[in-house]
């Protein structure tokens, strides 16, 4: 059974309140990286990630959408 599925919209009303809450993690002194290091990390991250995004998708994952389409279609027809 599904218990936790927050939707983007269901969170929206509490967001303004949340933003004003004290942010303990943000108060901690942040280490400052040289901009070229940050830029380099960003490039490496995006390169690795786009490699993964462009990986062929396993058929099983696409079939989930198709299988459920059919099941729902039949149920609706009755």
């Amino acid at each position, binding site marked *: 059974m*599904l218990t*936790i*599925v*927050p*939707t*983007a*919209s*269901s*969170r929206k009303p509490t*967001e303004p309140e*949340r*933003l004003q*809450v004290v*942010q303990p*993690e*943000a108060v*901690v002194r*942040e*280490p400052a*990286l*040289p901009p*070229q*290091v*940050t830029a*380099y*990390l*960003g490039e*490496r*991250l*995006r390169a*690795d*990630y*786009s*490699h*993964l*995004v*462009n*990986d062929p*998708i*396993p058929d*099983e*994952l*696409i079939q*989930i*959408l198709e299988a*459920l*389409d059919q099941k*729902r*279609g039949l149920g*609706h027809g009755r």
Partner: protein
Amino acid sequence: MAVELPLRQEMLDAIPHLRAFAISLSGNLTYADDLVQTALMRGLQNLDQFQPGTSMQAWLFTILRNQFYTEMRRRRREVEDADGAIAGRLAVMPEQGARLDFGDMQAALARLPFEQREALLLVGAEGVSYEEAARICGTNIGTIKSRINRARARLAELLDLSLEEDLGPDRLVKASLFMHVHAIV
């Protein structure tokens, strides 16, 4: 009700991104595909909760991410019950399945705490806004920014990137130790 075509297309378009996120987050290809599969099925089952006009991808990311943390907590609990707390810390991830071997960046990512890893992946790799990342992770923008800063700092350290530019405390300590030792000798 059959899934409407545009929504179905949006789900389909989200799959490569869900998969890249799940792989980078878990570091385990087999487990990542399980996560994506479950997220898609839950998304379909709960499609009536999806707000049209909002991002389908962000919605599915939220489902997948919550699923991941729920399973992590459950797995940790099970292992702790069986073998005690130390084993629990060691065996958080599923054992089976292909591990990622992409090199030093993935290895360094895998050493970040999950919360830092997901924030960095969402904003730095996937390119979602701080605001959207905060919604997906159930936190606020300040926390997301802080996690990303710490993630970057740790990655730079793990990848040995900041040696030339950064004279941090460690280097200063080493430098003064070096001088001290030489003064004695």
